[in-house]
């Protein structure tokens, strides 16, 4: 009788813990870098050919990497919003960095695109999808927010609407504000529709 009771109690407790864990940070990404994991240093050239490392790119309070595209209309719908995020947060200690990981788009095309759309943040060219694979990025646009110690605190969409009139959830901005305020990010993984990254491996 005692054994059965103990077993039932353990079962109930583990279910409760499981349920609590589920509710804590929302859904969890199933591939790439997990929330809370650290980003290891890397070296990557930007679209002008200049080399950068994580150490040189990171902001004092954090870094937001956003996978972008030249041709994807979803990514392009966010051009102004991304530039605004860069302008709003660089002085507050979070650096916004773009990453083009599309094998179908050249560094020159990405550079021209940035000039045309007035994107002034650094844009890295992720040749052979090294960083995209490391992080598990699959779409554009897709953001990865790291804290001052390069720990992943948010991953996913910029906000919930392609067109600006229907935005009701500013997920990336909220995460950046939480990071600056020393608060936990409410929802650490939130998804949206985007164009799949064209990987050089043909995935």
């Amino acid at each position, binding site marked *: 009788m005692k054994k059965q009771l103990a077993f039932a109690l353990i079962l109930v407790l583990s279910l409760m813990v499981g349920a609590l864990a589920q509710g804590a940070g929302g859904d969890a990404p199933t591939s790439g870098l997990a929330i809370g994991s650290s980003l290891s240093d890397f070296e990557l050239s930007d679209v002008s050919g200049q080399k950068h490392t994580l150490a040189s790119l990171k902001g004092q309070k954090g870094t937001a990497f956003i996978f972008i595209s030249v041709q994807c*209309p979803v990514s392009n719908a966010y051009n102004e919003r991304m530039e605004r995020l860069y302008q709003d947060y660089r002085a507050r200690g979070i650096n916004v960095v773009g990453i083009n990981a599309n094998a179908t788009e050249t560094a020159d095309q990405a550079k021209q695109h940035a000039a045309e759309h007035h994107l002034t943040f650094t844009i890295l060219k992720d040749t052979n999808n090294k960083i995209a694979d490391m992080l598990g990025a699959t779409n554009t646009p897709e953001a990865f927010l790291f804290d001052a110690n390069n720990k992943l605190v948010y991953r996913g*969409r910029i906000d919930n609407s392609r067109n600006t009139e229907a935005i*009701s*959830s500013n997920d990336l901005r909220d995460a950046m504000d939480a990071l600056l305020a020393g608060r936990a990010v409410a929802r650490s993984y939130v998804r*949206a*529709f985007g164009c*799949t990254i064209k990987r050089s491996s043909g995935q």
Partner: protein
Amino acid sequence: MRIIATILLATCALASLISAQATSSSQNTQQNAQAVSAQASVTVHEVDLIGLKKLLSREGEHAHPLAVNFWGTFCDPCREEMPDLVRINSEYKARGLEFILVSVDDPSDIKKKVPQFLQQVGAVEMPAYLVNASDPETIINAVDRTWNGGLPATFLYDAQGHLVFKHTGRVNPAELRQAINKLMSAE
């Protein structure tokens, strides 16, 4: 008498032509009906999250295999793969596969942009929907928790509603056919 017969005959012919148009979306496989339905314009039905969940559920009368493709007119690989999906649909429809298209375009495009593209590419025999929900996350979760929301995305469910195949990005038609064949031989 002859004139009445001719008029009656003409009326019958006209009536059958009209009814052929009306039943173009049914299981009618007559050549005539098919030719007429190809000319008919595509209708895209708007669904919300609850409507989408209903479509994906395999209960009751919907208990046959289901293929779903999520796409958008704004997505190049989505548009590029559509002819492949149209072909696969025509091959497997008679064998009991239901193949539906779900657009994530802006709801304002439901009357023109979306149906025009489907018409253009010949996707006239595939039920077409546009999902309208304020939060894409809820849609993505309803379909597959592991889906990152990348487009295009193709999912295959068996008659019991189990997900047996999924692919994000342009689908390889041979791979999809293989998955459908496997599913149909197991059913």
